[in-house]
């Protein structure tokens, strides 16, 4: 789970109207997004995690700002519209840290590059939380497929 101070920081950087938290887990990031964004679409494939995320959002008093969806982000992505997308997909358990270099394409399920491409079709504005041993050169040149979404006016 994302440390709370990191989640707060990320949410402050991603302040916008509608944001998708594509792999919300128990809601640590979605809760902070609810404090900086007008609406949060929080998705997880595990109904138990979504149940816990909804509970946690209630504890923080922000459940009314979050739409929780149980489902596969890759399947749901074509139906979504948002101003920004936050990606913190599962890295495959604690063993991710044992590799000298983490490969987003081959070492996680779902494929980290496919996840990024799905997000790009929702919005070009993406925050992608990756393992700290990720090859940064792999993160930098992410492919940019044609985006059928629109550019929100995030700039101030």
């Amino acid at each position, binding site marked *: 789970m994302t440390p709370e101070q*990191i989640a707060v920081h990320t949410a402050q950087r991603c302040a916008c109207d509608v944001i998708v938290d594509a792999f919300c887990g128990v809601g640590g990031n979605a809760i902070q997004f609810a404090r900086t964004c*007008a*609406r949060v679409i929080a998705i997880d494939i595990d109904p138990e995690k979504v149940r816990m995320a909804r509970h946690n959002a209630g504890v923080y008093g922000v459940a009314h700002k979050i739409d929780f969806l149980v489902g596969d982000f890759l399947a749901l992505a074509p139906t979504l*519209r948002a101003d*920004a997308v936050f990606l913190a997909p599962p890295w495959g358990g604690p063993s991710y840290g044992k590799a000298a270099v983490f490969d987003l394409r081959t070492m996680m399920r779902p494929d980290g590059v496919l996840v990024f491409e799905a997000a790009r079709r929702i919005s070009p504005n993406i*925050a992608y939380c990756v393992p700290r041993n*990720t090859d940064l050169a792999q993160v930098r040149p992410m492919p940019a497929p044609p985006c059928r979404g*629109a550019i*929100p006016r*995030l700039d101030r």
Partner: protein
Amino acid sequence: MPRGNPAAGPLKPNADGDAGGRRGPQLAALPGAGAACEIEQNFLGQQPDPYTAAPPKTITAYYGQLAGRRPVS
């Protein structure tokens, strides 16, 4: 309920009326849109050790208009 985050600035209506007029122009109309990228390594308040090169606690890559954006509290 009021829409939008005042601190994030207003969203202007879309020329083609997409999504209730909330969205901006289509990506294809903006050359180079979405190409920006910023990689943020967060050490959770600790400076990276120059001798051991301790790894950061988290890495977040920001793309599009999120790249280079400052936090809005």
